[in-house]
C-alpha cells in the first residue's frame, strides 16, 4: 500500500469540512484515522502527525458496535484477564444512559462495589426507560459503552470483578 501523504490528509480534512457529516472513520490497512468536527477525538494537529508515521495507534473508536475491540485494548492496558470478568449485557437495543437524568451523578463508577439488585444504567427505547440491574455481586471493573449512545441487544455494558474473585484476592494479599 502506498503511504498516505500530507496532501492526502489535507484533502480528506477538506472533504469532511465541506460535508454534512460530523465524523469520519477511515481504515486503510494498518492506518486508522478518526476525525470529528466538534473538537471531540483527535485534533487536526494530531491527525497530521498520524500522517507522518506509517503505522498509527488506533485512536478512540467512533462506533459503539466496536465495543468488543475496545474492551480488548482497555484490558491490555489494565493488565487484567478478560476471562475473569463478568459482563453485564444489554437485554434490549436502545440508548445507554449512565445516570438517571442529565447532569445527575452516574449510577455506578469504575471501582464501585455493587450488589445484584443495584441499578447500573438505563436503556431507553422510544421514551421507554428500562432500568438495568447488575444481576451480580462484585466491583465495576470497566464501563464498556458510551453514555447517550445506542447499544445493541446483548452488547456488554459493564465488566464486573465478581465477589468471589475479590474475596480470593483479599485472602491472597492477607
Amino acid at each position, binding site marked *: 500500500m502506498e503511504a498516505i501523504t500530507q496532501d492526502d490528509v489535507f484533502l480528506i480534512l477538506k472533504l469532511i469540512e465541506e460535508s454534512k457529516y460530523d465524523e469520519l472513520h477511515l481504515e486503510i490497512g494498518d492506518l486508522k484515522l478518526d476525525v470529528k468536527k466538534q473538537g471531540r477525538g483527535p485534533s487536526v494537529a494530531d491527525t497530521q502527525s498520524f500522517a507522518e508515521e506509517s503505522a498509527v495507534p488506533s485512536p478512540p473508536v467512533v462506533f459503539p*458496535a466496536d465495543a468488543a475491540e475496545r474492551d480488548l485494548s482497555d484490558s491490555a492496558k489494565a493488565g487484567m484477564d478478560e476471562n475473569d470478568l463478568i459482563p453485564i449485557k444489554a437485554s434490549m437495543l436502545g440508548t445507554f444512559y449512565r445516570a438517571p437524568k442529565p447532569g445527575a451523578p452516574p449510577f455506578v463508577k469504575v471501582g464501585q462495589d455493587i450488589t445484584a439488585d443495584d441499578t447500573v444504567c438505563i436503556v431507553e427505547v422510544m421514551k421507554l426507560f428500562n432500568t438495568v440491574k447488575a444481576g451480580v455481586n462484585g466491583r465495576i471493573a470497566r464501563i464498556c459503552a458510551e453514555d447517550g449512545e445506542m447499544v445493541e*441487544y446483548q452488547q456488554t455494558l459493564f465488566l464486573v470483578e465478581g465477589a468471589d474473585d475479590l474475596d480470593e484476592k483479599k485472602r491472597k494479599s492477607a
Partner: protein
Amino acid sequence: MGISRVFVANRGEIALRVIRACRDLGIETVVAVSEADRESSPAREADRAVCIGPPQAINSYLKVETIIAAALGSGADAIHPGYGFLAEQPDLVDACEEHNLIFIGPRADHIRTMGDKLLAREMVASLGIPVIPGSAMVATGDEAQEAAERLGFPVLLKAAAGGGGKGIKTVTAAADLSDVFDEASCEARAAFGDDRIFIERYIPNARHIEVQIMGDSRGTVVHFFERDCSIQRRYQKMLEEAPSPAVNEGLRKEICDAAVRIARHIGYENAGTVEFVFDQKECRFYFLEMNTRIQVEHPITEMITGVDLVKEQIGIASGNPLSVAQDDITMSGHAIECRINAESPHRAFHPSPGRIDRWKPPEGEGIRIDSHCYPGYVVSPYYDSLLAKLVTWGTDRSDAIKKMHHALEHFIVSGIDTTVPFHQYILHNREYLKGDIHTRWIEDTLLREYGQ
C-alpha cells in the same frame, strides 16, 4: 430529501437484495439482525449490522420501537422494510414520519386501506372494476348462511384483515357453514386481532394474475405488466412466471389499465401489486387484493422489463420521479421463478431446517439467483423457509423452461431437504408445459400423482 444511509429492517435474501441495490446507488446500509442472524450474509455485506434482539421475530424483526431506535441510533435516514415482517405495518410508517425517517414504501393510509380487504373491495368496485361476487361483512352464522346461499356454494370465508393467502376457508356444503364461520372468526381474532369476516364466491379453474405497479410523488403511476402465480399450494406461491401464458394482448391491456386506475385513484406512491383472479372458463378477471410492498417474485418482472424495481423504490422515496415512462417500459422474453424452500416435498412439505453442507447454485446465461445461503449456513427454524429464488430468462416460455430444467439439475445442495425435486416434477408435467393449470392444480392434481 436525498437518502445517504438506509436501515434494512429485514433478513435473508431480500435484505441482501436491498443492500446490493443501495451499494450500487452509493448509499450506505445498516442491517437489523436478530441474535440468530449475526453471522448472516446480509450482516457481512452491509456496512454495519445492529443486533436488535433475540431470534424470535416477535421480539426482534417485528418490534416497531426497536427498529426505529436502531435506525436513529445508527444514523440512518431511511428504512427499507423488505417484504413480510413490518412491510405492511402502518404503525412503522407513522413512527418513521414522527422521527423524520423516510419509509421506503407507500403511505400509512394506503397500507391501511388496502390491508382492510373489505374496504379495498368497496373502493375498487366504486371504480367500476369487477370484484369477486361476495358479501359485505357478515356478523353472524345466519348472515353468513344467507349470503352464501345467495352466492351459491362453494364459497370462501375470508378475514377482512387477512390477505396473502391467510385467513381463508372453503365451504362446499351449506351444512358446514355455521361451524366453519365460528371457527373462521375465532381464528381471525386470534391471528389479526380483528374478527370481521366476509364471503366470496369460489371460482373454480381460476388463475392468479397480478400486475406490478409503481407510483411516484408527482402522481405518475406506471405498470410493469403481469405475473402469473397460479402454481400455489395452500395459497402459498411456489412458482411464478411473467408474462402469463393465459393472457392475450387485449386482456393484458385491460388488467394493467385496471391496476393503474386503482393506484392512480388513491395517489399511490412506491411499489405495489394489484392481484386479480382470472376465471378461465368465463374469461373474466376480478380484483382480489392489493399488496403494498415489494413482492418476493419481483425478479421475474425485472427480467422481462430490465427495470430494477428496488432501485426505483429508493429513488421514489428520495423524492425523484420514476426513471421510466410507461411508453419506455416494454417486455421481452419470458421469465420463471422457482422458490427453493427448505422443505421436504415427500413429507408433505414439512420444514427442513439445519446445516447446509454443500451449496452451489447453478450459473449461466439467463440464470439469476437471489439467495443469502452459503455452505455451512444454518437454516434457522425461526423464520420462513425460503433459501433461494431461482430465476431463468429465455427468449420465450419454452426457452425459459428449458433453462430452468438445466438450472434445477445443476443446483447442488445437501444437508437439508429442498423443494428442488418438486420443481423438477412440475416442470416435467405435460399440463404445466401446456400452461393448462389453475390455482388448485397442485393440490387437486399434481400432489395426488406425486403420491401425497
